[in-house]
C-alpha cells in the first residue's frame, strides 16, 4: 500500500465531488427536506424519535451518496485506474473518501436536526465515538456493495437490496448507543457495544481488502 497514492486518489475524489456541486447539494437538500417534513408532521420530536430519525436519514442519504461514488465513473475510467493504481490503494482511498463524506453528511444532518428538533445528546463523548465507529462500518459496507453493483453494471436497486441487510446490525448497535447517549436508557456495559462495533468494522474491513482485488479485475 502506497500512502501518497492513496492520498492522490482521495484528493482527486474530493475535487471531482466539488466540481459536481449540484450532486452534493442534492443530497444535503434531501436530508434537509426529510428532516423538515418529519418535523412538520410530528411537530414535537422527542429524544427517541430523534435518534431513530437521525440514523434513518443518515442511512438513506448515505446510500444515495455512496451509490454515486462508484457508479458515476465510466468503464474507461476504470481501465485507466487499473493500469495506474494498486487495487488496495484504490479501495482504501475510496473508503476514506466515503467515510469523510458520510461523516460530513452526518454533521450536516445533525446541524439541520438541531435547528428543527434540538440536540438532546447528553453524553457527547459516547455519542461521537459510537457514531464515528458506526459510520466507518457503514462506509465499509457501502463501499464494498457499491463495488459489487458497479461490477454488475451500475444497478442501484441491487445496491440498496444488498446494502441494507448488511448494515442492519451496525445500525441496531448505533441506535442502542445513541439511545444511551440521550439517556433514554442506562447501560453500564455500553463500552462493550462500542468494542462490538469496532470488531465488526475490522472484520468487514479485512474481508473487503481481501476480496476487492479479485472483484476488481473484471
Amino acid at each position, binding site marked *: 500500500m502506497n500512502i501518497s497514492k492513496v492520498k492522490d486518489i482521495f484528493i482527486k475524489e474530493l475535487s471531482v465531488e466539488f466540481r459536481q456541486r449540484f450532486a452534493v447539494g442534492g443530497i444535503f437538500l434531501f436530508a434537509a427536506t426529510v428532516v423538515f417534513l418529519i418535523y412538520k408532521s410530528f411537530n414535537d420530536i422527542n429524544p427517541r424519535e430523534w435518534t431513530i430519525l437521525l440514523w434513518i436519514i443518515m442511512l438513506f442519504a448515505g446510500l444515495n451518496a455512496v451509490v454515486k461514488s462508484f457508479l458515476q465513473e465510466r468503464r474507461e475510467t476504470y481501465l485507466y485506474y487499473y493500469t495506474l493504481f494498486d487495487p488496495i490503494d484504490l479501495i482504501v482511498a475510496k473508503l476514506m473518501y466515503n467515510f469523510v463524506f458520510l461523516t460530513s453528511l452526518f454533521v450536516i444532518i445533525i446541524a439541520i436536526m438541531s435547528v428543527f428538533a434540538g440536540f438532546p445528546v447528553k453524553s457527547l463523548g459516547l455519542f461521537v465515538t459510537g457514531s464515528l465507529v458506526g459510520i466507518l462500518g457503514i462506509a465499509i459496507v457501502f463501499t464494498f456493495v457499491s463495488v459489487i453493483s458497479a461490477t454488475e*453494471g451500475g*444497478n442501484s*436497486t*441491487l445496491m440498496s*437490496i444488498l446494502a441494507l441487510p448488511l448494515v442492519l446490525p451496525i445500525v441496531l448497535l448505533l441506535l442502542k448507543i445513541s439511545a444511551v447517549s440521550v439517556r433514554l436508557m442506562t447501560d453500564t456495559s455500553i463500552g462493550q457495544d462500542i468494542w462490538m462495533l469496532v470488531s465488526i468494522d475490522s472484520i468487514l474491513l479485512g474481508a473487503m481488502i481481501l476480496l476487492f482485488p479479485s472483484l476488481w479485475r473484471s
Partner: protein
Amino acid sequence: MKNNNIQNTVFRFVVFFLITFLSVDLRAESEVIDFMRNSGKIYSVVAVVAVIFIGLAIYLFRLDAKLTKLEKRINDQ
C-alpha cells in the same frame, strides 16, 4: 429484463413469507391452541416435524419441476 428478474425474485419471497405467516395465523384459533397444548404440547412437536417435512418436499418438488423442464429442452434439441 434484469430489473424484472430482481422484482420477480423479491416478489416471490414476499408472497412466500406472507403465505407462510398468514396460513399459520388463520389457523391460530383458540381451539387449535388448546388442542396443540394438549398432552404436554406434543402436537406442536408434530407440527414442527410436519413443517420440516413439507418444506423439504416443496423444495424437492420445485427441483423436480425444474429438471423436467430441462429434460424437455434436451429432448427438443
